[in-house]
């Protein structure tokens, strides 16, 4: 049984099919990359999976249980955590407090939550900044904070929306290492990424979206050669540090 599975997932905005009959399956311990040109429907797919949008049609199951129609906070409590492409730290709270909010999803007491938060902050390498106010962080630090908060909810699946965007090559390298560590510790991940090198380096499998539909799926190397994928990316500039949309 898949850990997280979507079948026939569809969402329209007006006349536009943002996501069209998408099937996705993620097994325990998977690290699946979700790629596609701008506007392919990747973020919409995330919003559907995490409950921020309700699908027009289709089914989403977490460990076989339907989570369609549940509120985002409920889905998070069930074990699906997400990050936002445009990071949304709680600006006037410290790094530790930011992460504590995530930890409170599993630990009702603030004492336990703070302990978990401290550990996660260390894990993502924000230890020295634990008591800094979030609004003062640099972009790479914010990306790590975003990741840390999601991790602190102790999810079964982590949905990461372009955590590399806006980072320079060195920083990307460090983020890749960090994600590998987290994955190695047993975390299942679904990764939206614009940075091809990072996706190829991290993912075991890649799903390619275009105009809301899946056009290819498979190991990174084969997908990259897929004619439909090549066509979809034709004319699309992809550089290492592709800016956020």
């Amino acid at each position, binding site marked *: 049984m898949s850990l997280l599975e979507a079948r026939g997932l569809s969402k329209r905005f007006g006349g536009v099919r943002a996501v069209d009959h998408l099937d996705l399956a993620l097994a325990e311990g998977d690290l699946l990359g979700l790629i596609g040109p701008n506007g392919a429907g990747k973020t919409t797919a995330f919003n559907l999976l995490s409950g*921020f949008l309700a699908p027009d049609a289709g089914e989403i199951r977490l460990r076989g249980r339907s989570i369609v129609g549940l*509120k*985002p*906070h409920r889905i*998070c409590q069930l074990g699906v955590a*997400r990050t*936002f492409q445009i990071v*949304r730290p709680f600006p006037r709270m410290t790094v530790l407090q930011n992460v504590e909010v995530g930890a409170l999803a599993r630990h009702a007491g*603030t004492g336990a*939550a703070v302990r978990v938060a401290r550990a996660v902050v260390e894990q993502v390498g924000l230890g020295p900044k634990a008591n800094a106010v979030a609004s003062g962080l640099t972009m790479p630090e914010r990306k790590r904070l975003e990741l840390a908060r999601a991790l602190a909810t102790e999810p079964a699946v982590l949905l990461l929306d372009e955590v590399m965007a806006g980072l320079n090559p060195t920083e990307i390298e460090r983020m890749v290492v960090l994600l590998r560590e987290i994955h190695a510790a047993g975390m299942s991940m679904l990764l939206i990424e614009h940075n091809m090198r990072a996706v190829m380096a991290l993912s075991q499998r890649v799903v390619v979206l275009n105009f809301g539909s899946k056009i290819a799926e498979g190991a990174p190397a084969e997908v990259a050669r897929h004619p439909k994928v090549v066509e979809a990316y034709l004319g699309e500039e992809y550089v290492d540090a592709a800016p956020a949309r």
Partner: protein
Amino acid sequence: MTWLGIAALGVLLALPAVVSSYVLTILIFIFFYAFLGQAWNVVGGYAGQLSVGHAAFLGVGAYASAVLAQEVGLSPWLGMFVGGALAGALGAVIGYLGFRFGLRGFYFVLLTVAFAEVCRIVVNNVEAVGGAVGFYITFTGDPRQFQFRDNRAWYYVTLVLMLAATGIVALIERRRFGVYLAAIREDESAAEALGVDTLRYKMLAMIVSSFLTGVGGTFYACYLLSLQPNAVFGIPLSVEIIIRPIVGGSGTLLGPILGSFILTPLAEVSRYYLGQGGWHGAHLIAYGVLLVAVVLFLPEGAYPRLVRLVRARKRA
């Protein structure tokens, strides 16, 4: 800090022995508005849901306990909780409608203003509670009826109200509830993504806030002995309730208290010095200028600024 708190509390406890009834009255209103500000702070400060209709909760609480006391003979000691519960229920209704339909920012402000105005207009037209003439409470000075002959008793009553509300807020602040409220204030969607049931926590904040405000209504009724809809449900009172915590620093534990200790005496002083001559209204101009100055020079509120000053001094 702890020692400072204990010393301050000691001074507050001892004050009635040495100051005049007039100073006591000022302190009573400082405490009372700090209490109301603290109650508002739960939803308006911590949760960041700006209600400019809190007078409605005060009014409901005040009318409920006064009418029950006068018509049914229920002691306001119990009536204050009935009033609080009714205010809490009204808060739940307003909160549910506002939050369920996703009203944020200015839309929520106007929803709360509109509900308070609806209450004001309705009560103005309900003859059973006196309509626009208002509801008058007999002065008995009987402690069983929540009335006191001595201002010192009122002083301790309001001091307890303020400390109790502050204690409740302190408890909330340190718990999951408080952390979640702050997260909601900062970024609601992000909080939702981290497992925060935002609707539930905003509702809880609204209910706690309106309940406390409703409890305060009983003090208003029994201390001032008459209730007029335009006064207790009016926008000016809602504004009085919110300005102190905002000036002091909304979403901070001591902000409402500090704000009240700043604004109430300043209003008093400016009324005294500017209210004597022929320039009726000059003192309110001064008060308005003061509010503007606070926004320009203390944009995060007085308490956070004070904390930064103290820290800077310690470091130096």
